[in-house]
């Protein structure tokens, strides 16, 4: 197998594992389909925006949870934001943690919120690494003169 085919195989396998393991859902595939010659970096751009945004939101939530009097409504609004953006990019695991997180906000359960905050942070980190790996594979394929297999 030549280099391009090998890389393409790696890409397909890696991509499939992300879906299979629930890191991303079909919405991510929808984003991949939006890439074209005029917009080749679209998914990378959106992913970058997402991780910047989620980082800021996580910090805001952490601050709010450290206050002597916790404003659960405020935290909930941040979680709602994160849930929305994770849904829009297809970050399925992050989105699912947000659903649980919102329940804890509603119940005004600080402990539960802290656990969810940790989980959300963790899932964002993992996803960031996984997508970096995926994007790197894409770059390697393109650099080797191949085309990126679509679903």
């Amino acid at each position: 197998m030549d280099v391009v085919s090998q890389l393409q195989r790696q890409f397909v396998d890696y991509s499939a594992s992300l879906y299979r393991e629930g890191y991303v859902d079909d919405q991510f595939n929808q984003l991949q389909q939006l890439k074209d010659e005029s917009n080749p970096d679209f998914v990378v751009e959106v992913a970058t925006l997402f991780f910047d945004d989620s980082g800021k939101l996580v910090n805001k939530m952490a601050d709010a949870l450290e206050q002597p009097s916790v404003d659960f409504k405020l935290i909930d609004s941040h979680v709602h934001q994160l849930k929305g953006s994770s849904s829009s990019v297809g970050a399925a695991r992050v989105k699912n943690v947000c659903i649980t997180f919102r329940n804890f906000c509603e119940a005004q359960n600080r402990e539960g919120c802290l656990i969810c905050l940790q989980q959300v942070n963790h899932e964002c980190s993992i996803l960031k690494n996984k997508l970096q790996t995926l994007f790197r594979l894409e770059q390697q394929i393109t650099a080797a003169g191949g085309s990126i297999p679509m679903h």
Partner: protein
Amino acid sequence: MMNSSCNVSSSSKPPHVLAVDDSIVDRKLVETLLKNFSCKVTTAENAMRALEVLGLVDEQQKSLDSTDSKVNLVITDYCMPGMTGYELLKKIKESSVMKEVPVVVMSSENIPTRINECLQEGAKMFVLKPLKPSDVKKLTGHLMIEESQ
């Protein structure tokens, strides 16, 4: 007052859509989806900014000059801090200048009362997030119908 500033004969002018959303990720997504359907896009991060773009703030008067890049459709998120998408919709429909502009409301939450309230207030469509290309295709359909009237 006639809405359409586009002559049918010179309708190669791309439709101008104003997309309002407080989420930077969603703004990027809706902008790309709309551009893929050949729309010119202006984004706003909140309703106040949207009203500025539409020329509906205080004594701002937007002249219906053909040189103005007139907005042909507004798509707005429902849940936004400050003025909500619903309130923005109402302001647009209450304005004598902008009330004919089609407005589409998006939301991540499927709440029938919310949907009905927006449709009753004159929204052309209510779309559930996350937005997909098929959604955008549908709403550009509304655009074209408006323009040909």
